[in-house]
């Protein structure tokens, strides 16, 4: 029997960007998959070689526009480790707070778009409503909604953060998560779309290099936050689920949002007790000699473990910057797990992996 080759993307409504999947269909069953990426390649790694560290810092937010703080942090951390810069403790708390808020915003966007892929309309608007709060808060503090350029080498730009507003936002989100769960979690149609669909076993997840919530949904305890020094004083649980199907990935993310709220509250509590008004601005131009060396800087981003490899040979510009991102590997695994599933399950599996294409192509 002849097979039909279906070209899903790069301009498909629900590939969240410009992923192109070349599917071979036998009826509605997929027999082979070939993911094609590179439609959003901005050569961020090449750019690093011709820009100074300060020039490159705003570019870093653009690796993944939905969670810019994580990438800023990874790059700042690499630079600080390279040049032995001490980061004050309050700055670390602010960084953690903003990163977790960013994780909330990113997961909320994922939740909305994932349910939109599954055909539910209103949850998308509800999650965007809450995400809008977070993003507006970021805009208020950092000056822009997605490309923050707020973390700098040695701390943060300024400490004029509106803690009361942040507290109000996370409290609101914590209540609203229950509301989303009312609509979705037990819905039999949602369950039929996600339970036992797209199962990724432990071995498969490790082989294909999945990280972050996708890996934890497969039952492997691996959260880089637990060994990151800036999370040392904070208490939080690592969410695990054992099935490895779309539903457990959903559940892991939902509970991770609650954990994020918990972490943010601890940070706010700390920051409220110290005086931030006399902290100087951190806007000075580093024109010092860069040290030599190579740094591996890790951060647990919403879409998986992010690594920034920074190699310096003492010049003003980095010798080589390499970004390891979570989505890159989540895209790759589609080759394996999409075989033998129905066409209508493609979106439910692909959506559950939370792939963001700018992160893949960089």
């Amino acid at each position, binding site marked *: 029997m002849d097979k039909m080759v279906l070209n899903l993307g790069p301009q498909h409504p629900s590939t969240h960007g410009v992923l192109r999947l070349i599917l071979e269909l036998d009826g509605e069953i997929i027999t082979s998959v070939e993911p094609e990426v*590179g439609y959003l*390649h901005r050569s961020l790694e090449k750019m690093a070689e011709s820009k100074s560290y300060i020039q490159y810092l705003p570019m870093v937010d653009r690796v993944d526009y939905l969670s810019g703080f994580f990438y800023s942090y990874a790059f700042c951390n690499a630079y600080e480790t390279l040049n032995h810069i001490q980061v004050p403790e309050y700055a670390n708390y602010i960084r953690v707070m903003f990163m977790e808020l960013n994780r909330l915003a990113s997961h909320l966007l994922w939740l909305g778009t994932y349910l939109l892929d599954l055909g539910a309309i209103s949850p998308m608007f509800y999650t965007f409503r809450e995400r809008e709060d977070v993003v507006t808060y970021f805009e208020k503090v950092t000056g822009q909604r997605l490309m923050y350029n707020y973390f700098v080498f040695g701390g943060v730009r300024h400490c004029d953060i509106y803690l009361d507003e942040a507290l109000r936002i996370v409290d609101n989100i914590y209540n609203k998560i229950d509301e989303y769960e009312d609509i979705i979690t037990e819905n039999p149609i949602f369950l039929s779309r996600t339970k036992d669909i797209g199962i990724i076993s432990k071995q498969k997840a490790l082989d*294909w290099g999945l990280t972050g919530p996708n890996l934890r949904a497969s039952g*492997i305890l*691996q959260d880089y936050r637990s*060994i990151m020094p800036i999370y040392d004083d904070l208490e939080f649980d690592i969410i695990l689920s054992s099935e490895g199907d779309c539903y457990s990935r959903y559940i892991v993310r939902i509970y991770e949002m609650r954990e994020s709220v918990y972490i943010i509250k601890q940070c706010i509590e700390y920051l409220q007790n110290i005086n931030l008004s006399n902290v100087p601005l951190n806007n000075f131009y580093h024109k010092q000699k860069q040290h030599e060396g190579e740094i591996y800087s890790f951060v647990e981003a919403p879409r998986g473990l992010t690594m920034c490899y920074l*190699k310096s040979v003492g010049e003003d510009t980095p010798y080589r910057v*390499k970004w390891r991102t979570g989505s890159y590997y989540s895209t790759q695994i589609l080759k394996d797990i999409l075989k033998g599933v129905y066409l209508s399950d493609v979106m439910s599996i692909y959506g559950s992996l939370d792939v963001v294409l700018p992160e893949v192509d960089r």
Partner: protein
Amino acid sequence: MNIFEMIKDKFPNVKLASEKIEVEVDDLCPILEYLKTTPELSFDMLLSIIAVDYMDKVELIYPVISTYMNERINLSTKVQTDAQSVINLYPSAYFDECEIYDLFGVNFIGNNNLKRLLMPKSWIGHPLRKNYELKDKRLSWNG
């Protein structure tokens, strides 16, 4: 027991350099296989493959982590143009190898489906090489 010493016992040619273990090209696959299959080590995830161009040679760094021990080691090897593919051990290396083939021009023996991953299929040259000319007229999008 130190991981490096365990490797050193099996493969005497390895060297420890600050944060990475330098290995010979031919030793790379056996070491990775040893690291992955030994139960007390079980380095089961390849994080990425980092390629750094040193004009004469390309250094490939393989950071592997063990979720069992929560440990990470970086294996590094220097190649000219040909390297051994590790997709049989770690399938996740496929995209990485394609990307390095695309951007550095390193050919991975054993990976039969190498393709240009990020650049257009008809692109000439390997952009992340240090000797790559940035004056390509295809790059002047601004007219």
